[in-house]
């Protein structure tokens, strides 16, 4: 059968089982938008290409399937850059298809020409400028395979316009042959046995659970593993929920703004069972002071992560879900022989110690009934309203940290955010992508800041047009809160370019302009009231604005450049400490 390159794109996407594509048409990709009318997938028309790729990311993170976006050449393709970098950092499987000027025009500075494979080489797992029409199905199939296998990531396929218009004899073959790409799936069995030996002898072991567990859908295996061995678990920002916060073994989140218990559990551990995590600087603090007494087992599908930031005692390269199954199979085998007890470490004292931390060092904030609305309270109210069944999507900044801290997550893919790149503006489009992925029965709640929201809120039009009823919650403190927090703590409270006055713009008018219900809450009573109202609206997007106390800071906090031995739990403690340090400095002088 003779088909055009453009038809081949659609047929390939259909053959790969793609059900949703986020995109925006334009010059070079125009030939593809004609057969797209008859394609088997739904196309969601965004308002900005950055929106398309964040939606693809949200879709992918919520469903585990590859998120697909399609845009034209030049400025459209460069608008994908932020999202590609974001997907690269957070290992999100995304297939980005870009139009390109005709092969014959490449290099001539043609209209809307940009060297997109060159620009995106460092921020994609792989990319390709397709150079013949016959190669189109193969290139897309390979890109899809690379995006979702091994350590997932974004792959970009650049399609010159003339190839989309040429015809060729359609041929489809499911197999992929990439001689240079063979991710390791199974862990080395000797290393797996060695790891279990190390765990058996540990007194203070911790599972350091990272986002790789979410990508691998390894939550069930993780729960069995931790409960069988009685090992406490910390879940990083990227892993929130993959081990339930409600489980007694959960020590919460580690890192710069983690829970006290989570931070200290890693720091005091004698063994880190690292699963799909990467010793990110926001988790470790100063690396030479991180978990000084711990041996390290490190399981990761990407061999380059092992030994990158921290020396490792037992390295295991493999898919974390498969490796956990190997652990469990070995333990089941021991159990059948009546030898399981020898493999279960005695963690009773350690768990008691951590339980004590949880009791003595909870998250602290004080919502006075008639006082200003606290952002933490607003977020807890959002959770109280929409509950455990909802998916929560955050932007980047203070609201993100509070949403990570204050909501008890119970499963992977329930919490979606931009962790590695820290992309402001992520929440609105990502939440729309999540909604497109999870369908009408699951509530999707975007928890955004006022700074983030103003970067991408134009996508509300997309949500309305395509009937994707997301609940957009804006935690409005009238500032770039996290930047302000750093200026307050590290720059002597000299505020520089952080004020975004509340009311500019009037978000209720924004809601009105998009034809969606808007609610504003300035007190805790109002917060409860508007949330109850918003909950009844399920057929349209909703915008809720919480006018919160701008003076609230995110704590706990491990000071930048410090170690996890210095966990500051409140602003009062911070300023006492700073004053004491200053006094000590003066005495010395």
């Amino acid at each position, binding site marked *: 059968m003779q088909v055009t390159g453009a038809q081949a794109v659609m047929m390939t996407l259909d053959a790969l089982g793609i059900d949703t594509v986020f995109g925006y048409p334009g010059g070079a990709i125009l030939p593809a938008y004609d057969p797209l009318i008859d394609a088997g997938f739904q196309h969601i028309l965004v308002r900005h290409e950055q929106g398309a790729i964040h939606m693809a990311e949200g879709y992918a993170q919520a469903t585990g399937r590859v998120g697909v976006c399609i845009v034209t050449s030049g400025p459209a393709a460069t608008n994908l850059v932020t999202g590609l970098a974001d997907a690269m950092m957070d290992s999100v499987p995304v297939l980005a298809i870009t139009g390109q000027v005709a092969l014959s025009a490449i290099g001539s500075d043609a209209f809307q020409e940009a060297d997109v*494979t*060159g620009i995106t*080489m*460092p921020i994609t*797992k*792989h990319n390709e*400028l397709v*150079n013949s029409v016959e190669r189109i199905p193969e290139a897309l199939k390979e890109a899809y395979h*690379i995006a979702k296998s091994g350590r997932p990531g974004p792959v970009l396929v650049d399609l010159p316009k003339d190839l989309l218009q040429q015809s060729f004899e359609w041929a489809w073959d499911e197999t992929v*042959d*990439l*001689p*240079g*790409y063979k991710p390791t799936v199974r862990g080395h069995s000797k290393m797996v046995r060695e790891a279990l030996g190390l765990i058996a002898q540990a007194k203070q072991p911790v599972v350091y659970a990272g986002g790789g567990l979410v990508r691998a859908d390894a939550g069930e295996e993780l729960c069995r593993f931790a409960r069988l061995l009685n090992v406490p678990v910390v879940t990083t920002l990227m892993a929130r929920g993959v081990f339930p916060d409600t489980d007694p073994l959960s020590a919460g989140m580690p890192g710069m703004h983690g829970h006290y218990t989570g931070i200290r559990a890693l720091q005091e551990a004698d063994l880190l069972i690292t699963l799909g995590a990467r010793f990110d600087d926001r988790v470790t603090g100063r690396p030479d002071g991180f978990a000084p007494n711990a041996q390290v087992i490190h399981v990761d599908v*990407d*061999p*380059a992560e092992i*030994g*990158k930031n921290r020396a490792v005692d037992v390295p295991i390269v493999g898919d974390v879900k498969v490796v956990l199954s190997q652990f469990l199979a070995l333990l089941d085998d021991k159990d059948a022989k009546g030898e399981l007890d020898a493999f279960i470490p005695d963690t009773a004292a350690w768990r008691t110690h951590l339980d004590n931390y949880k009791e003595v060092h909870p998250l602290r904030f004080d919502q006075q009934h008639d006082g200003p609305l606290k952002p933490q309270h607003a977020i807890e109210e959002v959770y109280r309203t929409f509950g455990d069944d909802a998916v929560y999507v955050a932007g980047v900044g203070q609201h993100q940290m509070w949403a990570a801290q204050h909501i008890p997550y119970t499963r992977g893919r329930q919490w979606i955010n931009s962790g590695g790149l820290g992309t402001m503006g992520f929440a609105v489009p990502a939440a729309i992508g999540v909604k497109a992925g999870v369908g009408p029965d699951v509530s999707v709640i975007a928890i955004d800041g006022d700074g983030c929201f103003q970067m991408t809120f134009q996508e509300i039009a997309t949500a309305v047009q395509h009937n994707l009823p997301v609940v957009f919650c804006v935690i409005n403190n009238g500032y770039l809160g996290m930047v302000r927090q750093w200026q307050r703590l590290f720059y002597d409270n000299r505020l520089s370019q952080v004020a975004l006055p509340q009311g500019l713009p009037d978000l209720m008018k924004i809601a009105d302009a998009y034809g969606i219900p808007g609610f504003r809450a300035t007190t805790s009573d109002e917060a409860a009231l508007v949330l109850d109202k918003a909950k009844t609206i399920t057929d349209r997007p909703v915008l809720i604005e919480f006018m919160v106390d701008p003076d609230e800071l995110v704590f706990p906090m491990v000071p930048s450049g410090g170690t996890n031995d210095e966990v500051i739990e409140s602003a009062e403690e911070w300023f006492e400490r700073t004053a004491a340090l200053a006094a000590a400095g003066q005495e010395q002088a």
Partner: protein
Amino acid sequence: MNTHRHVLSVLVENRPGVLTRVASMFARRNYNIHSLAVGPTEDERVSRLTVVVGAEAVQLEQIIKQLNKLVHVLKIIELDTEATVQREMQLVKVTTTPQTRSQVIDVVEVFRANVIDVDHDSLIVEAAGSPEKLEALLNMLLPYGVREIVRSGTIALSRGNRSITDGSKLRMRSVV
């Protein structure tokens, strides 16, 4: 930092942009390339890069792992410098006068190099060898006046009958 010279042989798919992928990876991860040479192999679908890097042990491991993540990279081995033949090529345009021409040619012969072009007041010397030998030759030629030089990156093969493709499963599709 204690950095050592390491020689990596890298087999890559012979595709557009593959050299850029390798070079870009080195640049963005702040690795130090001393030299890079690329050329065809006995299999037209495969190119061979010889990369000389300065790195301490942990960084070298990262370099190899990061290279391996590039989809078009097929195989990497670090060559043991003791058991490896390494060569660079150098062309030097030397100023000559009727008085110095024969002296220059004497130097060239001592180093087992070749004169490949002669003009009235200059000649071009071609030499292949270890970096040390080429340095020594250049030092001998400098007093006569060196107009320009060009030098290739290192290329290297391990000694003996072993080959980089031994035991590897390079299953390439028949039509690329």
